[in-house]
Every structure is written in C-alpha cells, then in structure tokens.
C-alpha cells in the first residue's frame, strides 16, 4: 500500500473520480429504473450502452462527415454537432431499450413468475447484440473524432478542470434533476412510482402497465444513451465489448447506492468512481475492481439495502 500518490494527487484523483462516477450514475439509471418497477436486473442494459456509444460516433462520422482525424469544432457548429450526437445516442439507446423490453421481457412477464427466465432471455439479447456488433465492426475498436477540444479551464489544487469532464458533471446533474422532477411530479412519473411500490395493486387500479413499463425502459435507455455520449466525449473510443466493462461497474454502483431509486444510483455511482480511483492509486489499478466488490460486500453486510436503499426486505407478512 502506497498512500503517497493519493496524498500527492488527491484533488486530481477526486475530480477524475467524480467525472467517472457521473458516467456510472447515468448508466446505473438503466438498471435502477427497471429494477424499481419490475424487480428485474435489466442485464441487456450494458449493450444498450454499447449501442449508444457507437451511435454517438456514427452520428459524427456519417451524418456530419467528420473523420477520426478531424479538428475540433468551435462555436455554434460545435454546439449543434454535439447536440446531434447526444440526441442520436439517446434515441438509439432509448429505442433499443424499449425494443429489448418487448422482445425479451414482455411476453415472459405474463407467462411466468420466474424472474430468472427473463434474466436468461436478457443474457441472450446481450450476447446477440454484442456479437452482431462484433461481426459488423470486425471486432475492431472505433475511435471518435475530437470535436470538443479538451481545454483546461482552471487548475484547482493541482487538479486540471477540463471542459469535457466539467461538461459531463454539469449535464449529468441537470439530467438527474429533470428525471427526479419527472418521477416525482409528472403524471407518468407518479404511475411509475405507483407500479414500483405495488405492482399488483397498480394493475388492479387500472394503470396501463405496459405503457408504464415501456416508459421506464425508455427513460433508462435515454439515461444510458446520454452516458454513452459523455463516455465518448471523454474517452473517444468504443468497441463491441465495452458494455460488459461499463455495465458491470454501473450495476455495482446501482446496488451500492441502493438499487431501485434514483438517488441511490447517484450516490452509488459517485462512490464507485471515487473508490476505483483511490484504490487504483493506493493499491494499483489491478486491484480496483476487487476493491470495489469488497467494499460493496461490506456495505451490504451493514446496510443490506445499499447506502440509500428503501427497505425492500421488510417482510410483508
């Protein structure tokens, strides 16, 4: 163990950890929204992210004819190109998420109470999507043009505040606030919360379940799509297997924070980003995922529902 890197580069690590954490937060939405409503691990969400990341790049390269060697844009052109990429990623991910629900989950929901069946179906979808993209891309990674120059805006305590990471943080916060308002204030949002609290009663109350569930998947997909856009903006590369890496981390984040609620995803994502960054610095990058899992296990032992988890476990006798 070597704490010298941590103390030496603390501000820098913290800022980077938070930025990474926000990407986890947004992907975690895809897990947490669906879990909240259906009590189902949406395994295919990782591939929703993967599709979104390709969509982001393809919008830039096919729609706007940028190449990987294009120079950064400025001004209005930058804004509308980036907006188009964000929207493109969100549309692709959102639609993919809704289609996955219809293909992999909807039929099963009415036919079996066995939730593992849906899980395997989702794993099937996951394999199909990842393999299809692998074949389409010849297994090669796809790089993104740098459209937003990584200008350093300020240096705080030795940490560079860069425009791209700042963008992630600001936009993620805005998205989360909008989503929180939507779920808590809008009619559809109330429906989602009602279903999430009591599935059976909601059905009896005449709530259109399929509509609510599709909406939930759509929102989860949109969040995941936004995450993939921000991921590309910061890391500028994707490949067919990216879903597994990021998906597993985001799922861990969702559980760490307390799966099923948005604030939990937020807390878990940021916590995981920081844990990974600090663990890499202190123990070495090869121990980062182990550290994350060990901390997850410890947290669950003392707080069985995660940091912000509602008390799902309370026996409803």
């Amino acid at each position, binding site marked *: 163990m070597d704490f*010298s*890197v941590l103390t*030496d*580069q603390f501000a*820098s*690590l913290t800022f*980077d*950890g938070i930025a*990474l954490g926000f990407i986890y937060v947004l992907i975690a939405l895809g897990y947490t929204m669906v879990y909240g409503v259906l009590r189902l691990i949406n395994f295919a969400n990782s591939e929703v992210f993967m599709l979104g990341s390709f969509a982001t790049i393809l919008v830039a390269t096919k729609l706007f004819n940028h190449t*990987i*060697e294009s120079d950064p844009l400025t001004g209005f052109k930058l804004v509308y190109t980036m907006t188009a990429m964000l929207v493109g990623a969100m549309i692709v991910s959102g639609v993919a998420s809704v289609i996955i629900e219809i293909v992999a989950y909807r039929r099963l929901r009415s036919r079996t109470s066995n939730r593992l069946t849906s899980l395997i179906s989702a794993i099937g979808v996951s394999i199909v999507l990842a*393999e299809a993209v*692998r074949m389409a891309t*010849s*297994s*090669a*990674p796809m*790089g993104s043009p*740098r459209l937003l120059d*990584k200008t350093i805006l300020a240096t705080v305590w030795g940490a*560079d505040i*860069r425009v791209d990471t700042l963008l992630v943080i600001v936009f993620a916060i805005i998205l989360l606030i909008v989503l929180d308002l939507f779920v808590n204030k809008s009619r559809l949002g109330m429906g989602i919360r009602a279903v999430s609290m009591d599935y059976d009663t909601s059905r009896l109350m005449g709530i259109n379940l399929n509509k609510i569930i599709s909406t939930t998947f759509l929102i989860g997909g949109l969040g995941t799509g936004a995450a993939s856009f921000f*991921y590309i903006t910061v*890391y*500028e*590369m994707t*490949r067919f*297997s*990216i879903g*597994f*890496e*990021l998906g597993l981390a985001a799922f861990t984040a969702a559980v760490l924070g307390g799966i099923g609620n948005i604030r939990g995803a937020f807390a878990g994502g940021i916590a995981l980003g920081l844990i*990974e*960054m*600090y663990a*890499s*610095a202190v123990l*070495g*990058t*090869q121990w*980062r*995922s182990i550290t994350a899992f060990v901390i997850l296990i410890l947290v669950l032992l003392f707080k069985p529902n995660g940091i912000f988890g509602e008390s799902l476990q309370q026996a409803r006798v």
Partner: protein
Amino acid sequence: MNKKIKASAAIVAALALSLGAFAANTASAATTVKIAYQGPLTGPEAQTGTDSIRGVKLAIKIYNATNPAVKVEIFEGDDQGDDAQGGTVGAGIAADDAVIGVLTAYSGPTIAALPSYKAKGIAIVSPSATRASLTDPTSKDYGNPVFHRIVSNDDLQGPALARVATNGVKDPTVFVVDDQSSYSVGLTKAVKLALGTAFQAGDSAAKGAVSDFSATIAKIKKEKANVVIYTGYYADGAKFLKQLRDKGYKGVYAAGDGVLNSQFPKLAGKKQSEGARLTAPTVPLEVASPKITAMFKKDFKADPGVYTTEAFDATNIFLQGIKAGKTTRADMLAYLNSASFSYKNTAGITIKFQESGDLSGSGLMNQFVVKGGTIKLNGKA
C-alpha cells in the same frame, strides 16, 4: 394445446437448426491439404483472431490462384482466446488428418493444445504466441520439436524496447504499464530486467477492463517519470496514450509489437501519438508491402491489424513447404526443423529457426516512430 404444439415445434426447429440444417462440409479431395488456424474468432478477444486469419486467408488465396497441384484449405479453429477451449480445439485440429500445419494465436491456448500437437507431430508456426516458456528448454511448456514462431519472444523484445524507449533520454525515469495479459506480463518482466535502475515504478491495467487511466497517470506524474513504456495491445495503448498526453505528459511513450497497428496513431490522435516509439520483430503490412496491403483492403474492406503480417508470413512458410512437396505432417515438421530451412518474409528479411523454435539471430528487432499520424520504420532496434 396449440401453444404446446408451437413450443414443441420450436424445439424441433432449434434442434434442426443445430444438427440438420447445417450439414458439415466434409468434401476434401486427395490433392487438398489443410492449414489450421487456432485462435480467437469469436468472443472478446476476436479482434486478434480476425486480423490474423485474414492474413492466413489472403496467403492461401494468393497461393491457390496459382493453380498448384496441391490445393490448400483453411481449418478455422476458434478457441475464443480461452485457455479452457484451447485443449479441445487443438485436439480437434489434430484429429483432422488433412491438417499438416497449424498457426496458433495465443500462448495460453497454445500451451493447452500443445500435448495434442506433440502427440500427432503437427508443426506449429505461431504468428503471435510470444511467451518465453514456449521455447525455453527448462520449462514445462517447452514446445520442441513442433513449436516455431516468427515473432520474437519477450526475452528478446524486452531489452530492445527498453533500449529504444530510453534512447537519448538523459537520466531516464521509467514507468511501465502492463495489461495483465500473459503476453504483456512476460514482456514487462523482460523490460524491467533490461531497464535496471532506470525502472522507477509500474502499474497494471487489465486489458479491456479499464477506460480511465487517471490513477495510473497520477502515479506517473507523482514519480516524475520521463519515459513511459506500455506493454499491452494497441486499443488500450492508444486510449492510455491519449489520456496521458491530454493530461500534459511531455516525456517519451514507447510500446512493443502489440501496439504496432495502423489504427494506433488514429485512435490515439495525431497530436498525441506524435513521437511515440515502438519496437517489433516485424513490420506492419502497410510498411512491409503496399501491394499486399492493397489486396488485403480490397478483399476484406478493412485495414490490416496486429499480427496480420506475421499470420501472412507464417502461412507462407507452410505454403513454401507445400510447394517443396512436403504434404504430410512428418515431412512438414522435418522441413521446418532442418538446418537448411530459410524463408524471406514480407519485409524482405530472411529468417531461420533455432532448435528451440525461436527465430535465430537477434538482429530482427525493428524500431518505429509515429510521425504525422502514421507509423514509420526507424531502422533496427
């Protein structure tokens, strides 16, 4: 009832799909021999396999186009880069009597399959298995007499990489990053040994599992390293280099043959990759032969990748043997192991094998430098 019938029909359909519909293609005339490729063609490692097997296919296509007496077919052995499948796939390749030689991609699955190849006396020419133990007579993994490789082993490349990386750097302070693959771990060990006191610290970021290298970069900054050596493959290597430069690192970046890929400067960015130093026992296909590169691009609508040249050359070694009339396993193996064997590779370098299966001579390491977004050969390492 109707549902049940539908369900039963589905099972039958699934079975038919898996068993009947795809009848195995077994036709093979007496004048046809096979060259097998054992490597990852599906799954997370598929990139390496895809890049390599295209080199194999291209070489065979060029050969068959000359209307030879003995036609050559390819046997695709997909081990997914998985050590567990290596043994089964190797046994399958060994069981096909038409196979007279095999290219194996990864060291792990090669070692898993080695007992089968040894038992059946099938010659291996590996385009990419670089683990030192495969050609180390004292190791349990020693591949003699069947194993050969046309990549330099890690023990040869390590010193070259260390030398190239620190060349011209005053008071080098070196930071080494590996990707935890067995290739990378072996190379790292050799590099560290060659660096001696110049080696400062290191970090390991598992291949394909790390997007954000901030913590590694924080360490590099803290150590005030002026040379960074990356021992993994090009995708992660490019991602790492890009982040490294974006965070203001000004020193040397050097990497081994895993990074030697035309995509590398593109993925890392023109500005960020400028001046990156690479070593490899071979050359990228684009540099080695623009003509073959053009054929490759025409055939596959894609760029050549890591080990494409090596796979192309390894296949040509077998094809050279077949042209010389070596169309049985025993003949092929004896041919490769004979003292008179030599082969002129795509880059025009004549290569021979040592008894251990390694290339003979140590003057095969080349160095490259990235200039203006392309990889340029920069002489011997």
